């Protein structure tokens, strides 16, 4: 049955028991993203320690795919430096855009994607790709903002 290819056990697990959920302090930036076609929403906070992502916390409302995707994201990105994390994000984006070739792509990039390989099946459902990407887009945005804040602070420090 095709459904199982989208709703892998890993996804359902993350959906039922989401990791790192809830909004936490401290944080360098906070964003709110919405999926206009279905109304899914996520509020996401990112905290940095130098260029290391020290925390990602979130509140979200949405389907199993978007919930599980946020949970997997935190597992994958917390503790990585920004460059590594962006590489993961980029790979996940490619996975979501791979359409029919999701499973091959996921297999190839299993080392980078870890639990996120479970989303390979979602790539075949264009309407659900946006669900899976919602938190990843929010993370990208939040991280860019956090870096911008850091830049400002650094400049201030240099000036002072």
């Amino acid at each position, binding site marked *: 049955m095709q*459904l199982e290819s989208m709703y892998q056990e890993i996804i*359902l697990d993350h959906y039922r028991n989401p990791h790192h959920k809830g909004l936490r302090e401290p944080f360098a930036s906070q964003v709110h993203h919405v999926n206009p*076609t*279905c*109304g899914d*929403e996520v509020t996401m906070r990112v905290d940095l320690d130098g260029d290391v992502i020290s925390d990602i916390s979130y509140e979200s409302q949405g*389907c*199993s795919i978007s919930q599980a995707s946020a949970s997997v994201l935190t597992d994958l990105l917390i503790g990585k430096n920004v460059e590594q994390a962006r590489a993961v994000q980029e790979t996940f984006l490619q996975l979501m855009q791979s359409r029919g070739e999701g499973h091959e792509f996921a297999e190839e990039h299993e080392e980078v994607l870890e639990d996120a390989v479970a989303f390979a099946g979602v790539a075949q*459902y264009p309407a659900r790709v946006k669900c899976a990407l919602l938190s990843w887009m929010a993370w990208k945005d939040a991280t860019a903002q956090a870096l911008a804040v850091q830049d400002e602070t650094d400049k201030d420090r240099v000036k002072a």
Partner: protein
Amino acid sequence: MDISPQFLDTDRIREDFPILHRTVHGDKKLVYLDNAATSQSPKQVIDAIVEYYSLHNANVHRGIHVLAEEATALYEGGRDKVAAFINAPREEVVFTKNSSEALNLVANVLGWAGEDYGIRPGDEIVISEMEHHSNIVPWQLTAERIGAKLRWFGITDDGRLDLSNLDELVNERTKVVSLVHVSNILGTVNPIETIVKRAHEVGALVVLDASQSAPHMPLDVTRLGADFVAFTGHKMLGPTGVGVLWGRRDLLEELPPFLGGGEMIQTVTMEKSTYAGLPHKYEAGTPPIAEVVALGAAVDYLTAVGMDNVAAHEHAITEYALKRLQEVDGLRIIGPNTAEDRGAAISFTMGDIHPHDVGQVLDEHGIAVRVGHHCARPVCVRFGIPATTRASFYLYSTPAEVDALVEGLDQVKRFFGV
């Protein structure tokens, strides 16, 4: 179950709809319950399009060759059919691209109009919390441009229009009340008479969004008493690309034009133009010719079945569906939970299972429902829910499809382990 006499002969009707015979996800029979989003077209409508392009296609009104005469007769014949369908004189029937354009047309020309009808800074526009975005955003835009105030009716807990503050809400400052006739998300049929009475008492115009009523019940614009009525072809067995604005003749005559261009003019000089008579004044550019011809065929089809019969069929289906759905554990109807004053769109939530997940599992079983906020996000906010799952029925829907939906919902629960 026993078949009530009010049901239509869906076996025969379904034969006319090619798409209802396709299968999805391998060999699953298609159970199409997304009629509030768009309806399917019978072969009579598809054939009308094919015949138009294969034999009669030409631009209308301006030609004297055979094809131009035929195309014009077919196009204006479509107008006659639509006019008869809503019991209006043909001059009052304006073709737009969809309901949304029709509603924007009214919101814009009332913004531009002179003394009598023009919306001025400080004037009030009244809509409701259960409007489709297409009847919210145009008024927000007009209100913002002009500095008018947008106000709205609330919704009661059982999904009805809250009329408790009618007399305060609709007052001497009110220039226009724009209201949905039948809600696409709640299914509610609104009490138009009451609203029209109050609005006209204070000299306000009434715009009716009939997108979900024109396809499903007899609609007599003369009796309704509203000043404008908007609806859309693709929800009434017709094609995409065509909508209808009906307006009272004196209003359409007095109000300024909307879009400018070919067809809508009387005489053009570089300095100044005068405008054509009704209905052409509001139809700029080449109209949706094939679409109007096909809409005419759709109207013929509906008329042959009989709009009273369509309404009775849908009422019976809705009654049955409401009963069956309320037997499903954890299911909550968003909207009236009886079939009285209710259309055939039924929204619901399923415990904690997100509508996306509900819809996905149903789809896997061949059941097409819509999930999300149905372009009526304020309703979801009002009921404190992110989205709903919506099943919506039409003249070809069967009790067996309701059963399939209920069985599908059991599968959903099983799948997500609830």
